[in-house]
């Protein structure tokens, strides 16, 4: 395998890297990744979308649900409660119902929508391979996530109260 010289023919080699011709990791001081964190979460969002489209068919036949273990045991909902309901509602086009169940689904949906064009742009070499965020930006993201999680938890407490899931 040839060495990776990304400073030269960047576009071709970026595309080659992304298409798997080079392994992720350290390339002479440049730590390259195949997918950034938002892309990974967006990819998961796509899986959630497919799952949400198939989920009702499964639950209608079996009656099996996906309870939140925390709520089932303690009666206290968690910040992610309602995501299954929200995802199913969103793939059915019921945005209001999705928001009522868990507004965070729209963040996941936005990443899921963005991941397709991002993959195309990276695979064609228009965008460079992703690099890890600097520590400062990561800290900033963490500071954003915790209040969001708290807000979502309060939302779920308001929506569901403290009661064990049936």
């Amino acid at each position, binding site marked *: 395998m040839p060495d990776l010289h990304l400073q030269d023919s960047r576009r071709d080699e970026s595309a080659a890297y992304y298409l798997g011709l080079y392994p992720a990791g350290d390339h002479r001081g440049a730590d390259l990744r195949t997918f950034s964190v938002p892309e990974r979460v967006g990819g998961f969002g796509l899986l959630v979308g497919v799952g949400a489209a198939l989920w009702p068919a499964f639950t209608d036949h079996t009656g099996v649900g996906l309870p939140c273990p*925390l709520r089932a045991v303690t009666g206290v909902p968690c910040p992610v409660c309602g995501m299954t309901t929200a995802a199913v509602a969103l793939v059915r086009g019921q945005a209001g119902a999705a928001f009522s169940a868990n507004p965070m689904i729209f963040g996941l949906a936005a990443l899921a929508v963005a991941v397709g064009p991002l993959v195309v742009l990276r695979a064609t070499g228009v965008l460079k391979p992703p690099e890890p965020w600097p520590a400062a930006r990561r800290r900033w993201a963490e500071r954003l996530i915790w209040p969001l999680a708290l807000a979502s938890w309060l939302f779920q407490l308001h929506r569901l109260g403290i009661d064990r899931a049936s």
Partner: protein
Amino acid sequence: MTYPPNNDPQYGQQPPPYGQQPPQYGQPQPPQYGQQQPPQYGAPQYGQQPAQYGQPQYGQQPAQYGQQQYGTPGGYGAAAVNYASWGQRAGGYLIDGVILVPVYIVAALLAGHGTFANLIAVVFYLAGLGAVFYNRWFLGGKTGQTWGRKALGIRLVSEETGQPIGPGMAFVRDLCHALDSLACYIGWLFPLWDAKRQTFADKIIKTIVVN
């Protein structure tokens, strides 16, 4: 420390002679001969962004010229830990579970059809349990690879030693997975964004899954 082999093409190679600039993204800054790199959270990035997330922290030892250490942070020539992706981890777990489905289906079909059938069902059920014990805990603890992990080319090792964690700790780690399920299974998704791609259980037991 002995660590699993890295698939990085640079791993195991000697750095170029002193004074020779290696090709890098952005402005190259190879370490000087004999000069130690201070431990950094992250390796040098292209674009010259210091102290970045995503690089291993193993051992916190400074990189030295001519010394290759798996997971050594910072420094030119240091090999990155190749963490397994969420997809690989989930796939391995899925394979470990799916393999046992036929056994439990047979046990379920036989159960309730007379004493002899019940006995056979119990045998199948125990065989499934034995397979879990052997695959998840014995194999997974001793070699780091269950059948599913082996199929996907990943292995579970200790974050501190790089070695398999042993059957006992593999069992405790699986118990700790209960915490991953606690808040709507969010712990299972942590490898999507975590720097070391660890679940809650991995953080508690101090394990990583590598390629």
